[in-house]
């Protein structure tokens, strides 16, 4: 059963909300999304060092806060709410979770403290963004007596252009391994790409016999667990975005007058709003529960995938309606709605489309019966 936040968690949420309200208003989002780097180093420093958000869920022994998925979700929800521009998701959620769950002791010790403190910005290089089982087919590792070299490419990697550290999943012939690579290593090529959502920067990453440090073999279980963490956090981002869009749209309808009455008084729009509320509430409940499931290792391991699929669908429904119900103004650049719409559209397919995640749910359900 979904728990309401306890007092500490509520306070934590409020702190993050206040911080981002202050540091990530849409004026700032609009400024940063037009830049190449895409984030503000000062805000990143405050966020990671003053608030410790880069290490929310990372182990205390590696410099993190040692919080669990619930608190990670709290942060992610606010990130989606305020459309934070910066490497938080890439570094803390993706690279951080993968290291925490998949790296060997030495790998965790060498990489996580920097990530947790925010001093080192990392990103996770996955050569497939659709499903965990497909990762590791386009980047291959040659293991040497000491170290390894990586060859291959990843078509879409978030924030690689500002990363101090690339965490890479690569095929090893016998399985998959986790590796770290410094971006300035010979044989590493990072090419910024244009993205549909300018608040999340994307790159292509090529390796040509690039020297890498092995961080251990990556078990299927660890890969799946990391995918759950990332999916869950992305689902929280999505419901954060969806909620702010939903609320602002209802507010707009109550203010906007046509034909001598507020458009909120038109029954067709009232019913549409009720439909959206329903879809959003069901998604929110599932997303919140997925964090508890992940924290407690419950009976429904598929909840993270279910949550990502529902959150993406709900957020896209709300985003589409947020434009439609505003009419022409909602389609303008000047209006902020499109910022969230684009984040939603991009997040819909990032780390597995709803379709991929539903298929994953089914597979997990079948395994649990077998």
């Amino acid at each position, binding site marked *: *059963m979904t728990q309401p936040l306890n007092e500490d968690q509520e306070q934590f949420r409020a702190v993050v909300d206040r911080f981002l309200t202050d540091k990530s208003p849409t004026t700032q989002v609009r400024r940063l999304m037009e830049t190449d780097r895409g984030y503000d180093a000062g805000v990143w420093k405050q966020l990671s060092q003053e608030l410790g958000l880069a290490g929310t869920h990372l182990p205390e022994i590696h410099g993190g806060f040692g919080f669990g998925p619930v608190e990670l979700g709290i942060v992610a929800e606010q990130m989606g709410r305020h459309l934070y521009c910066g490497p938080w998701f890439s570094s803390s959620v993706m690279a951080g979770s993968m290291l925490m769950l998949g790296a060997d002791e030495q790998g965790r010790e060498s990489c996580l403290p920097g990530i947790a403190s925010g001093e080192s910005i990392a990103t996770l290089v996955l050569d497939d963004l659709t499903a965990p089982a497909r990762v590791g087919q386009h980047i291959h590792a040659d293991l040497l007596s000491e170290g390894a070299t990586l060859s291959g490419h990843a078509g879409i990697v978030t924030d690689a252009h500002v990363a101090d550290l690339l965490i890479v999943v690569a095929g090893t012939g016998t399985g998959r391994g986790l590796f770290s690579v410094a971006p300035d290593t010979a044989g590493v090529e990072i090419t910024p790409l244009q993205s549909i959502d300018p608040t999340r920067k994307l790159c292509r990453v090529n390796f040509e016999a690039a020297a890498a440090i092995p961080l251990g073999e990556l078990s299927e279980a660890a890969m799946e667990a990391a995918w759950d963490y990332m999916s869950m956090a992305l689902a929280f981002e999505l419901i954060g975005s969806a909620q702010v869009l939903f609320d602002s749209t*209802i507010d707009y309808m109550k203010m906007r007058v046509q034909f001598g009455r507020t458009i909120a008084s038109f029954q067709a729009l009232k*019913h549409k709003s*009720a439909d959206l509320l*329903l879809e959003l509430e*069901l998604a929110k409940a599932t997303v919140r529960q997925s964090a508890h499931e992940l924290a407690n290792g419950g009976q429904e391991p598929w909840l993270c995938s279910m949550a990502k699929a529902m959150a993406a669908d709900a957020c896209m429904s709300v985003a589409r309606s947020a434009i439609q119900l505003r009419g022409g103004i909602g389609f303008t650049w000047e209006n902020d709605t499109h910022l969230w719409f684009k984040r939603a559209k991009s997040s819909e397919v990032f780390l597995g489309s709803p379709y991929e995640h539903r*298929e994953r749910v089914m597979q997990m359900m079948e395994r649990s019966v077998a």
Partner: protein
Amino acid sequence: MNGQEREAAIIAEVTEWISANWNPDLSLQAWREILVDGGWAAPAWPEACHGRGYTEAEASVVSRVFRQHQVVGAASSGPRGLAAETILAHGSDDQKKRYLRKILTGEHAWCQLFSEPGSGSDLAGSSTKAEFIDGRWIINGQKVWNTSAHHADYGILLARSDWDLPKHQGLTYFLIDMHQPGVEVRPLRQMNGHASFNEVFMTDAVVAAEDMIGGIGNGWAVAATTLSVERRGFSRDRSVQSFAGLSGRVYDEYQEEQRIANEPYTWYPQRAGRVDLILSRARETGAINDPHVRQEIVRLLSMRKGADLAAAGAAAMKKAGTNEVIPAGSIAKLAASEIARKAAHVHTMISGPEAMLAGSDSALEGTIAEILISVPAISIAGGTDEIQKNIISERVLDMPREPRFDTGPFRDIARNTADT
């Protein structure tokens, strides 16, 4: 006494009383007379009305002890609970005295006479006539959707006593004796073949002056109590203790009472779409291996899971004392409609041409067929989806109410002429 001590005291008292009084070989009626006399039939009711003035929490402790000892409780099935709560809230001392005890003992069954062919979503549009003539009320009109009316001894009735007042002000609430020549109950068959409801025709039916409740013209306020009790019921667990396999006259008679009470509801699980059967059916037919069907199944299970979690979340928030802004009932009801429709679709897809069959020739002895022709009810009964969406948009989202076209004297308001 703190909470724990209080609970222990209650447990001790009720346990002692049970061991002194419980006898499964009595008739059900005789046992319940003892139960009422002992004050344990409805501990949350006031002491003046067979109760003990317990809080809901305290009363639930009593229920628990009864269940532990497998002791049969007061009669509670059907609309009698609605009648009892309404009488408790609005009834005169005389009415409480005359009706409440026999509700608890099960001697009297009740039915609800609110909906009419011409006023469904718009309950306050009732046009059943109540005229005060020679010291008694004469009732003429037709009611519909009256579950268990054919077993009922009394009905709670909403009727119009004044046609010149505005709609909500001309209604009066009555307790009507169903065993009289002016009242005719006819079963109403549904498209799925069941007849869970009745129509009730009243022709110069009589209600004594002392069976008006809540005052002339105050019917809508009284009905609001009944409706809120009904709504609370929607989210409650319908399951009651079956005492299956136990012997004793009380148990036998209780089970017969339950059987009759549950008769109208046998198809209710089907109208909800039977999501519980989806995976096993898909395995059975092999449809589970089809990537498209898999998507549809997970969509359905996701809605179901989300709705369960949202309901549990609302309950937890309420318990935690957070201000509840969501009318959980309306959202749960709307979700239930969508889930049922989706489930019917997925069941159809899973069954393929076999979905053309019915009854014993079809899958699961007709259960699947019954789903397909029962699901349309869920988005209508107890308030249509459209009404729920009005409620959600107006009460949760605080959007403006619909403009009203039914102000002024009821006589002048547009309404259905025939039984449209």
